[in-house]
């Protein structure tokens, strides 16, 4: 025992004791699985995320993988889905659902090289549905990859020096950060912080390399250890972002853990730490609700990695493993109280966070168009509707970006709002990029302030959770709302509008000034009163509306807004002042 202990520092031993004292019963053979959610056992039995994935991939009778493997595959960045448009038809045809897989690529801070962009573009053409989805977490998604192409696709991603490890699953997900080097010269520093956190919190199992990259099984796979996660990983997903005020582009309060850069004299002196944000909720389950993160303190840049790890550990050891609907950090905090949490975190850290420093967010979302950085390099923030990179009719976005990737030397940076920044361009490159976009019909034309601030999750036809359309529908709904906006001369007014197909919140609808959550096909709940800087939850305004009803509800409010707003008053603030809805003060008050 002594020789084992000697490998660890004193601090690590202390931590192990805390961990062990909490898990002593469960670490023995007497884990009472009946009390825990089913996924807990699946994780435990998976032999560090192996499950029976190899067997599942080899099974020629089905395009799906075994049920337990659908949980394990998420940790590898892979979701099993099926084409829901064909669901009934194929059932009648005595055929299994048209299974395919979503592959999410881990891209800390959303930064890729032109070469990596080309690789993803290529893979999307070869194995996926010929499109790339840019997610709200600055990651790529490929959709429609069939089982027998999974391995080849992952290998292609690997060849592009990217991976899909922990892009989904009960672990820390893709770490986000402010995306625009031209907006902030501190971009490089926050990006580095995000990247380091992401690397540090990666699972250490070698399962991924064995299964997808054909790397040899290590002699005794039992040697795998997960020093951070343990054999059951986290109770639920975990999300981290890093922001540079005044921009709240990654909606820091929606994340489990947020770092708010505190800048003094153009230098990051440290970060305010915000914990306990989360969007997901469930219809008919008032105990599951969206919640905004609490700012609990300040840490130095050197402490950030440690803080990230220890917040994860407190959640690992205290999060609810019985009920997955209540297992995010936000509930751990609400169930124990924020003071308990801070105290616990300090124990794990071995030091106390400092008092939080003042900060101010003025807005969320992205600022579109060209911007020159202090280094004289240009960057272009390009609006990508629904984050979907595709060629459509005369709008050859995908081809244009491919062509651009061939000629530039800069970076492609995915934003947290499904948009894309083409960054670090010389003046010459800027000219060429403009020409290519124009040639392909991708002219940043006149966008309404509403469309510019729109987010839609994928929803139908591939997401298994969706009750209604989102990405395929929001653009046309926005067009209809724009007619109303034009009538009231509000076309240019920036209003945050977001739509998701279900209440799980991938598109962060609870922070929108106008939020829609799908109830059933063609029906949406309407939420109003989020604010423009992403610091307030919205409130249910009307339930289960059809499109006609949505327009009928919004029209008079927008008219009122146009006539009676106070100077500079944002739409989300107006609807609260005029009492269309009551302000939601805390997550647990939120109602569907």
């Amino acid at each position, binding site marked *: 025992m002594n020789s084992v202990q000697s490998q660890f520092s004193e601090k690590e031993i202390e931590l192990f004791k805390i961990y062990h004292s909490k898990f002593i019963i469960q670490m023995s053979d007497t884990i009472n699985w009946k009390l825990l959610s089913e996924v807990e056992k699946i994780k435990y039995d998976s032999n560090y995320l192996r499950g029976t994935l190899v067997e599942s991939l080899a099974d020629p009778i*089905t395009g799906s993988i075994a049920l337990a493997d659908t949980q394990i595959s998420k940790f590898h960045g892979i979701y099993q889905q099926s084409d829901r448009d064909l669901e009934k038809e194929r059932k009648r*045809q*005595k*055929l299994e659902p048209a299974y395919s897989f979503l592959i999410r690529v881990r891209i800390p801070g959303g930064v890729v090289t032109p070469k990596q962009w080309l690789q993803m573009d290529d893979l999307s053409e070869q194995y996926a549905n010929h499109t790339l989805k840019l997610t709200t977490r600055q990651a790529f998604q490929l959709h429609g990859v069939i089982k027998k192409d999974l391995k080849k696709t992952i290998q292609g991603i690997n060849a592009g020096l990217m991976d899909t490890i922990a892009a989904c699953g009960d672990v820390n997900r893709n770490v986000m950060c402010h995306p625009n080097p031209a907006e902030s010269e501190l971009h490089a520093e926050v990006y580095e912080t995000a990247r380091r956190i992401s690397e540090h919190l990666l699972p250490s199992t070698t399962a991924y390399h064995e299964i997808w990259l054909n790397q040899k099984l290590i002699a005794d796979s039992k040697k795998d250890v997960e020093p951070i996660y343990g054999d059951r990983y986290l109770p639920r997903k975990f999300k981290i972002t890093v922001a540079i005020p005044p921009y709240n582009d990654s909606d820091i309060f929606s994340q489990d853990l947020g770092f708010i850069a505190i800048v003094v004299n153009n230098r990051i002196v440290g970060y305010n730490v915000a914990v306990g944000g989360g969007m997901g909720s469930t*219809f008919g389950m008032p105990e599951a609700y969206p919640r905004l993160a609490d700012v609990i303190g300040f840490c130095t840049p050197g402490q950030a990695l440690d803080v990230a790890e220890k917040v994860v550990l407190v959640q690992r050891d205290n999060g609810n493993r019985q009920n997955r609907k209540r297992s995010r950090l936000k509930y751990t905090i609400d169930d124990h109280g924020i003071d308990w949490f801070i105290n616990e975190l300090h124990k794990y850290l071995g030091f106390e966070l400092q008092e939080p420093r003042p900060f101010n967010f003025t807005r969320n979302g992205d600022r579109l168009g060209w911007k020159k950085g202090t280094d004289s390099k240009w960057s272009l923030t390009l609006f990508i509707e629904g984050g979907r990179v595709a060629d459509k009719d005369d709008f050859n976005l995908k081809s244009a970006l491919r062509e651009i990737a061939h000629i530039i030397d800069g970076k492609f940076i995915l934003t947290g709002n499904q948009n894309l920044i083409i960054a670090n361009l010389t003046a010459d490159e800027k000219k060429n990029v403009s020409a290519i976009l124009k040639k392909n019909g991708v002219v940043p034309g006149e966008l309404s302030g509403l469309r510019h601030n729109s987010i839609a999750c994928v929803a139908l036809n591939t997401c298994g959770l969706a009750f209604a359309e989102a990405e395929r529908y929001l653009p046309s709904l926005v067009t209809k709302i724009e007619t109303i906006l034009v009538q009231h001369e509000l076309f240019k007014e920036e209003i945050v509008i977001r739509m998701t197909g279900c209440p799980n919140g991938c598109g962060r609808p609870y922070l929108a000034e106008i939020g829609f959550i799908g109830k*059933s096909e*063609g029906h949406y709940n309407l939420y109003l009163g989020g604010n423009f800087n992403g610091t307030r939850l919205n409130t249910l305004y009307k339930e289960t509306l059809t499109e006609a009803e949505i327009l009928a509800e919004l029209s008079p409010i927008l008219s009122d807004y146009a006539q009676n707003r106070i100077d500079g008053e944002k739409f989300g603030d107006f609807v609260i002042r005029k009492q269309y809805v009551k302000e939601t003060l805390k997550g647990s008050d939120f109602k569907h």
Partner: protein
Amino acid sequence: MSRIFLPISIDISDRKILVIGGGQSALKKIRILQRFGAQINVVAENIIDEVHASGVACFQKKYEKSDLQNYLMLYSCTNNEELDRQIAHDGKEAGVLVNIHDNPALCQFVSPAIYQDGNISVAVSSNAENVNESIHIRNQIQEYLELLVSSGNSQPASTPIQAKNSKQLKILYGTHTGRSKTIAGKLAEKLASRGVEVQSVALDDYKTRQLSSESNLVFIVSTHGEGEPPAMAEDFHHFITGKRAPQLPDLNYSVLALGDKSYKLFCKTGIDIEQALSQLGAKPILPLLKLDVDFEEEADNWIDTFVKIFAEKTESEPVINKTSANNSSANKSYSRKNPFKATVLDKVKITGRDSDKEVYHVELSLEGSGISYEPGDSVGILANNPPSLVENIISQAGFNGTEPVTLKEEEISLKEALSDCLEITILNREVIQKYQEKTGNKKLQEIIKNDGQLDKYLYGHDVLDLLEEFPFKLMAQDFACILRSFPPRLYSISSSQSAVGNEVHVTVATVRYSYKGRERAGACSTYLADRIDIDSQVSVFIEKNPAFKLPENEETPVILVGAGTGVAPYRAFLQHREASNQKGKTWLFFGERRFHSDFLYQLEWQKLLKDGYLEKIDVAFSRDQEEKVYVQHRLLENQKEIFEWLDNGANIYLCGDMKQMARDVQKTLLRIFENEGGMSEERALEYLKTLKKEKRFQTDVY
């Protein structure tokens, strides 16, 4: 002293049985024996017409001892005691079992009074002492069994008089979130504690065929989205609200519907099921209850009420009245000449959207026909021809279609004849010959003279080609006489009656191709694809295929090799095995073009595999990768195990396309014998022949 006979059940299908005597009592015996498929010969000096007409082989002659050769048993109905004694004596000597009509003392075996329905046979024997008593008891049992069937109990109660056990109840649940299942569990527990024989079954595990034999059902079913049933209840919902649902006058039921009031169509699935049941004549035990998301308390109350009412009701309920359910006597014999008009129950294209194949699954009703078939048999379908081809032929030949023609002594219009009675999509030698003779066309004569050329011409050409390429003005009647009468098309049946009851299923690939600038269509496959729909009537008959049958010994392993629609009879085989709960050694090889769209009956194979009725399945999809992969490649990959299976007595079946697949598979089998059995080419061929001879290698190729 009275003798005691051993009652046995014996399979006499295709066994030779001799009936001596040709009168009424012989006829009676013949009728019974025919029902069991015996091969009957009659020897008698006087044979009445009905015996002649019964289809048995009649030998009008005096009885001789040598007549007894090679029979399993004989029935003597001579009414001549002296002759009977002689026959009894001769029979014993020749080793033939003897039954002498009206003379039990001379009998080696006696016939009990029998009642047979489905898989159940009841035989009552008085050991040759009192025939009338046997018959009387048989009638009583028959009445009792029919009562059981009509009142929905498959298990007889302890005494015949207490026929109906109304304390049986099934709870069928359909759930998305598990709530319905939880309620079902609670209800089951409470009912069981009141002595009710209760079973809780998921709706996707429930066989709708059982419905008409149920007495008491409780449905607990949720609704999601805009009135959608949960996935597991979809099929049942479709069935019960569709036209296939049987009348259910003897069913008592209750529906508990779960839903969410914030949706417009609240509890729609439950409401649908309630309405459907009520329309089918079932009687509610409690009225429909609709529950919102906070259902617990109301659900508990409902359970208590239900249990109380149900328990009281069943304790006081008298035995229900007998309803007549005996229509099995409608034993008309349908045949190729006298086909049955079967209603189309369902028709669905079972190849996926992006398939370049078009395969239909068609379900036909045999209700009321008395038709029975076995797995491996074929169904004959009388189709009609593609209307566009009929039109084109009429105009090409310069007719208008109304010309009368006489076919089989019946006058019909030419159009009718071309559409329904004559073969026009395919040419054969005889038709070309006759056409040439009528027209005297020289060029055609050249083709006929040259076998190679003729074969080439026969392939892919139809009657319109003949008219276009060798035009000649014919009289309508002459033209009709040239053509061959339209033969029915035979398809391997893809269902087993033990699973689908009064239905027969077929799996048909539509034949369409383009040749010489014109779209061509197979007559019967496009008839099924384009010209019939659900509710249409299709003329069918059964064609037995004794050469393609599951092994008699259910322990015998089977290897099933099929490409495309060649998998159809295996669906029947496995349905049969599933219905009779025969698990074990079955290995299916299936080939088609693409996994995504052409994996015929994929969901069914998956379920059979999961449930253990199918042990292994290997698939070959030829177009899913660069190199073409076919079933024979999969066979070869598994050669060691295949040979082991065969060596251990497995039967191997082959069904599908004759030209390519069958040839390649046979070649591959020979190779396997050589590789794995260390056989020479000759020995391998010999081995294959032996397998065929022993009926262990059976083929159904077309």
